[in-house]
């Protein structure tokens, strides 16, 4: 887990995907780009984990998919957050905030 390579902390990918989709429907490539850009190129989502994660989330009914046209008029599969997914995002966001704060407290107490 070298952070310099921009790899993700285990278990956060689902949350990042859900968060990205909360802004609106997007295809896999778009999701990866968005995460990369917003994180200032720190977080890079590997395709090998992105697509399995998307399909897993879809099977869990957290997201839905639909074929549509991309910005450059190509057929692309768009993922959209479901109501269940929105709740899941809230849950994960909440526990992540607690975890991050806790880690920060430990690290800052010399």
């Amino acid at each position: 887990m070298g952070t310099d390579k921009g790899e993700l902390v285990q278990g956060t990918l689902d949350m990042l995907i859900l968060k990205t989709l909360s802004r609106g429907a997007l295809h896999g490539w778009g999701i990866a780009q968005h995460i990369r850009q917003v994180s200032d190129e720190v977080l890079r989502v590997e395709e090998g984990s992105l697509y399995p994660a998307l399909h897993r989330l879809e099977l869990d009914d957290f997201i839905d998919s639909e074929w549509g046209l991309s910005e450059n008029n190509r057929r692309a599969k768009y993922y959209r957050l479901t109501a269940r997914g929105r709740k899941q995002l809230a849950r994960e966001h909440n526990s992540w905030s607690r975890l991050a704060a806790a880690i920060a407290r430990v690290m800052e107490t010399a």
Partner: protein
Amino acid sequence: MKRFWKRLRRRRELDRDLEDELAFHLEQSGDRARFGNPTVLRESIRDMWAFTSIEVWWQDIRYAVRTLAQHPGVNMVGVLAIALGIGANTTVFTIVHSALSFDMGVGSVDRLVFISATDAAGRNPFTAVPVYADLESRMNVSLPADLTPLIYLPYRAQPERVMFVAVRGRVPPAALAAAFRKEVQQLDPDLAVYDIDTLETRVARNRLEVGAMGAMFSVFALVALALASVGLYAVVAHAVSQRTREIGIRMALGGTEAHVLKLVFAQGMGQVAVGLAIGLPVAFAVARMLRAILVDVAPGDPITFAAVILVLMLAGFLGCLIPAQRAARVDPVDALRHE
């Protein structure tokens, strides 16, 4: 449930969908190398959507059928052992069951009396009067056509040198016996009165014989069942242990103990299933024949059938489990050397 339908709907177009989805991604990134191994990726996503367990089971079963076909000799022995085991056991148990629980359809069987009379040549000097023409329907039995006619006779019609007398009284049996003996000796002092018992004792003695026969047959049946089980276990276990090398290869290639067990069970239990498929109809046929011979036998007494099948299946199960587990725990290197 919803997920089930989703999977079912999606599975059919999944492969093309996945292809298109990944193609789009590649096109956008314009960098094929970064994708790693697309086959592995596709495979792992496909697995997510698949009803993996059912499909793998189906594969295992097909593999099992192929292997069964490859070793017809050994497998025939196994199948026959099962078939015979079931046939013989259900038959014996059915006989015992019917002997022990024979019900003539009348309240107290021990009160029924048959008197038969034949002359020295074995012919019947009497003309039968069908007093009990409706015996068959009354007793709910079917009498064989060649049955020697039986009639109830008054003693005077044919005196016998030895006879049994049933006495009913209101006093205790011991007192009755004494009184009876006195009565007989008054008729003829030379007549010997012996073997006096209460009806209960006599019935119990009769029952004892049937019971002993039943117990004996039960023991035979149990022995037969035990033999069938041991034989079945041996055949299955032998077939599995012959696959030690193959199992070693599978383990070396990353198979888990669960994989191996599943594979072995698909074959072993397949064998058992074929044996059951052959043995059950045979057993049913025998039971039906018995019904024609023995009155009142329920054809294929279901509890007996179920019990015998369960025991044999358990034997087959253990025959798969024990050697397969042993094989799966063997160091792959040893297993590969094994031959």
